[in-house]
């Protein structure tokens, strides 16, 4: 038998990764934090999770059916959005609030802009901010073991000192998914090992926040460590800031993105009205991504390596 040579146009090297496999990896990576949240906050947390995911998947299905578009619920992106949104809720929330949030995330933030890959902002976080503004009381009442208390960040703002070890394990009040740093880090390690995310954005983000708080807030390293472990910083840095659609694709841009995120989070935490600012920092930085990408565009092979910024200014002057 003669050997057949297959002639085809590029690309010749293909990856076996699909949207579905990546989204599955993200969902798996969030499982430790989810399990810890359900273990700590009880069955109602599980209900919140199920309702949010169902709301997301159903609204994606209904919208795409109604608009006669291909149904994309099997790519798991709606499930991931639902999981992130649910993990950002306090466990005692009435169930209709996460359901409303899921519908808002998928229909308004994702589908109206054209579906997966077209949304300009992280859908889960936009929905979370929508709910936070609308139902401020219900969205920020946290209880732990039937005892309602301030989150570590709010307590630290009032001058209390926190126990770093319990914050690391997660024995603190907070949203379902953000409390346990160790569970989140296990998930993050899985994502890094599977090469779903790179460490550029999360590390730049966390380091910038820590340095900012060290310089402008409190010069005590223990305090800074508590700030890093408290609130949604770890969860946000590894799982939400690294969203492919709403983060820069250029490596240099990813560092810039991380620094912007860190600065905004630091500013919001130190001088904002609320003790936490990760959600707002991420959705605001999402809006800057097109500018960051334009500025950090690498030079094409063989061209002079003119930096993106220089190009941008040259263009402006040319006009």
């Amino acid at each position, binding site marked *: 038998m003669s050997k057949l040579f297959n002639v085809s146009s590029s690309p010749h090297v293909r990856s076996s990764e699909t949207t579905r496999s990546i989204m599955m990896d993200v969902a798996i990576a969030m499982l430790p934090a989810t399990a810890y949240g359900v273990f700590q906050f009880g069955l109602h947390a599980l209900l919140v999770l199920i309702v949010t995911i169902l709301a997301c998947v159903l609204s994606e299905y209904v919208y795409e059916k109604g608009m006669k578009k291909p149904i994309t619920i099997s790519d798991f992106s709606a499930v991931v959005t639902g999981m992130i949104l649910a993990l950002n809720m306090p466990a005692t929330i009435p169930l209709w609030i996460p359901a409303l949030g899921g519908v808002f995330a998928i229909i308004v933030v994702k589908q109206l802009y054209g579906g997966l890959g077209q949304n300009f902002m992280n859908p889960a976080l936009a929905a979370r901010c*929508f709910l936070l503004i*609308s*139902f401020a009381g219900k969205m920020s009442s946290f209880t732990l073991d039937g005892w309602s208390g301030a989150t570590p960040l709010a307590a630290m703002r009032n001058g209390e000192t926190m126990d770093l070890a319990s914050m690391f394990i997660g024995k603190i009040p907070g949203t379902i998914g953000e409390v346990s740093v160790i569970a989140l880090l296990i998930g993050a390690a899985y994502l890094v090992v599977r090469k779903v995310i790179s460490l550029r954005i999360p590390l730049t983000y966390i380091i910038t926040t820590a340095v900012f708080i060290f310089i402008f807030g409190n010069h005590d390293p223990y305090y800074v460590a508590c700030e890093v472990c408290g609130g949604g910083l770890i969860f946000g840095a590894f799982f939400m800031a690294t969203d492919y659609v709403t983060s820069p694709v250029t490596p240099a841009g990813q560092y810039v993105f991380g620094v912007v995120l860190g600065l905004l989070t630091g500013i919001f935490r130190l001088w904002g009205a609320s003790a936490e600012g990760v959600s707002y920092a991420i959705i605001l930085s999402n809006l800057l991504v097109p500018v960051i990408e334009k500025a950090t565009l690498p030079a094409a092979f063989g061209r002079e390596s003119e930096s993106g910024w220089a190009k941008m200014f040259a263009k402006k002057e040319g006009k």
Partner: protein
Amino acid sequence: MNKYVERLYNGIWKENPIFVQMLGLCPTLAVTTSAINGVGMGLSSTAVLVCANLLISALRHLIPDRVRLPGEIVVVASLVTIVDMLMEGFLPSLYSALGIYIPLIVVNCIILGRAESFAMKNTPILSAFDGLGMGLGFTIALGLIGACREVLGAGTVFGIQVTPSSFQPISIFILAPGAFFVLSMLTALQNKLKAPCATNGSADKEEKENFGCTGNCMTCAEHKTEGEGK
């Protein structure tokens, strides 16, 4: 269609200043926190629009072309001052709710836009009807946006409770982001209803002729000159 009625139809539906022309968005987004504020703003603008169009059209041969913008502004500003004082005297609660946006009617782009594009080129009565149509279109749009925001954000319409007491108001709708949500949704709805060809591009020639406009007036040569008088 009678040309006066056509002006009203044009202002209210076909070239609605909010949903189609996207003019005057500053008061639209700022004052529509309740239906009554929206309608109040709309009606005061309507009063100014009708009188401004009538006066400017009557004066159009007297105003030298080179100073027509200051001329128009003087007329509009005088009318707004009258409305401002009347409202302060007779509707103090609405006046305080609308605040700075009443004097700002002077720089509302709808008013200057109609004066410049219609009143300067048409007869006074027709211009007054154009102003009335645009004003009513503005009022209806503001009233609708205000009503939607009020229902969702406070559970009331014109101050009357319409939702069951178990309904939890979604307070973002009476804050600034809610104005954008409601405006965009209503614009999409109006686009969908106005002409099939405006949103899906699949309408055939006959349908296009029936509906007059393809919706994309910027690229459509025959409608580009519309509003400049026939």
